[in-house]
């Protein structure tokens, strides 16, 4: 059975252009980029050139890019890097974030609480967007209490519902109050503007595994002048901010992927927005009592997240899976906890609809035919599951 992969927000395949450029770095130009011989220098050059390529797209200087091993690592580096720096200066302070962040942000901050940091999670509206006013009030209130706001961390785009935050405005607000903004752009890389000057951003996390590059690749953009404690200590790699033998193929692949994404951004945005809206419209037309989660407009072009009243997400997921459709759910049943998605709860969904959500995330290889098939199968699936559901009353 041919598979339909609608889980591109979870991870993407390595695209063939990327695979092609990295293949020589596995077994041929494999040397350690810190070695001093020709092969080492060649590896170093590959890293340097990759850094320069990405710097161009991010409109920053190459020294502002720290290659890491994943989105999670970049996030941990950014947040703990700032926090430990303060701690070692004998200070603590407040970090402000918001409720729909990825676990990598929320769990990191949860851990920092144990060290005495004060963590504030802002609410979001029904669309999943933070309020600039609330952020401003929170900063002012903290500063009035003489709590230094050492960092604000707000994601660029949400991984579950695709909501896009007003990053530039948030950054400007942070700067007005002399604090800094980190943004988790793991889901944004492929589709949104990454110009750090235009965004006025201070710290930004990118991730290879969502942009047709490698799992195990990522980077942190760090504006010049911002001080971080490293997360991985050892050799002096990455401007002494991230030790460890440079993962040359990963880095080369990440640069290539970001470059391709940038080139195709405009056309892919257009194509996917059309497909997305077609998907949503068709689904809502065919299946009654299906509710879009998140914003209609301030939304990643590849994200469809819908709750189907009366049926539970995992059961939808697994029945679609039998039809060759691979997607995701915000239901608790696929996680380790009994609680459904914290994101759906944060945007005000009741537990019933939170347990009833499905996420379809399109990608580079998605097309209309796949959507038509999916909606057809989904319709049958929802109908059947509603038949056996005790909370569905026709």
């Amino acid at each position, binding site marked *: 059975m041919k598979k339909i992969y609608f889980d591109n927000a979870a991870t993407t395949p390595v695209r063939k252009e990327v695979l092609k450029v990295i293949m020589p770095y596995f077994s041929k130009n494999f040397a350690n980029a810190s070695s001093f011989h020709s092969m080492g220098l060649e590896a170093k050059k590959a890293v340097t050139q990759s850094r320069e390529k990405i710097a161009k797209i991010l409109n920053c200087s190459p020294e502002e890019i720290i290659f890491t091993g994943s989105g999670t690592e970049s996030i941990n580096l950014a947040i703990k890097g700032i926090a430990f720096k303060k701690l070692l200066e004998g200070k603590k302070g407040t970090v402000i974030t918001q409720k729909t962040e990825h676990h990598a942000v929320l769990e990191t901050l949860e851990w920092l609480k144990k060290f005495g940091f004060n963590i504030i999670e802002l609410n979001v509206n029904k669309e999943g967007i933070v309020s600039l006013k609330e952020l401003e009030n929170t900063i002012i209130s903290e500063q009035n209490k003489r709590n230094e706001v050492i960092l604000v961390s707000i994601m660029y785009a949400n991984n579950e519902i695709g909501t896009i935050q007003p990053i530039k405005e948030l950054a400007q607000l942070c700067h007005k109050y002399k604090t800094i903004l980190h943004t988790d752009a793991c889901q944004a890389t492929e589709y949104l503007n990454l110009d750090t000057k235009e965004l006025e951003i201070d710290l930004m996390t990118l991730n290879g595994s969502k942009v047709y590059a490698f799992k195990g690749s990522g980077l942190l953009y760090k504006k010049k002048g911002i001080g971080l404690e490293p997360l991985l200590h050892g050799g002096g790699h990455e401007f002494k901010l991230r030790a460890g033998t440079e993962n040359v193929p990963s880095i080369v692949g990440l640069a290539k992927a970001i470059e391709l994404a940038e080139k195709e951004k405009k056309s892919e945005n257009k194509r996917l927005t059309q497909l997305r809206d077609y998907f949503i419209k068709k689904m809502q037309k065919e299946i009654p009592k299906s509710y879009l989660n998140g914003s209609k407009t301030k939304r990643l072009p590849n994200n469809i997240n819908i709750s189907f009243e*009366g*049926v*539970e*997400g*995992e*059961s939808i997921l*697994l*029945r679609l899976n*039998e039809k060759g459709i691979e997607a995701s759910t915000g*239901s*608790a*049943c696929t996680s*380790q906890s*009994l*609680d*459904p998605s914290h994101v759906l709860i944060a945007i005000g969904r*009741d*537990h*019933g609809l939170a*347990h009833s959500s499905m996420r379809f995330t399109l990608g580079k290889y998605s097309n209309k035919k796949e959507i038509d098939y999916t909606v057809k199968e989904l319709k049958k699936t929802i109908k059947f599951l509603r*038949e*056996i*559901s*005790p*909370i*569905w009353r026709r």
Partner: protein
Amino acid sequence: MKLEGNDWIYSKKVKEHFIKPKNFLKNQKEIKDFNGHGSVGNIKCGDLMEMWIKVKNNKIINVKWKTFGCASAIASTSMLSEMLLEKGGMQLEKALKITGKDIMDRLGGLPAIKIHCSVLGDQALRAAIYDYAQKNKRTELSVEKPIEEEHH
């Protein structure tokens, strides 16, 4: 958790009962044919279950159910309904002894994080038997009042 068959997280038996569940209530009108009804679960945890039983001569001779929940919840209710109806129906006393583990064993096991789901089936059954016992003054049946939980 062990994987089996074509990469299903669940056993073959779970998959079978989940994909083609048995004895669920197809038509609301059938309800009148039953003399015991139970409803358990909690929408917060994402599992809700209703069960209808028809008791005759102290035997469960028919059973129907409805479930909102994950694959294992659906499969375990379906499995339970099959267990009850084997050999022409089960004595109430025996039915009261069915545990979550019994259902799970018949399903060929469940992943650890899923075990809470299978426990619902036997609870729904107990609630239905309690309802039957109440209505039919079968006070000798040692079955406790189920804890009421709110629905959606």
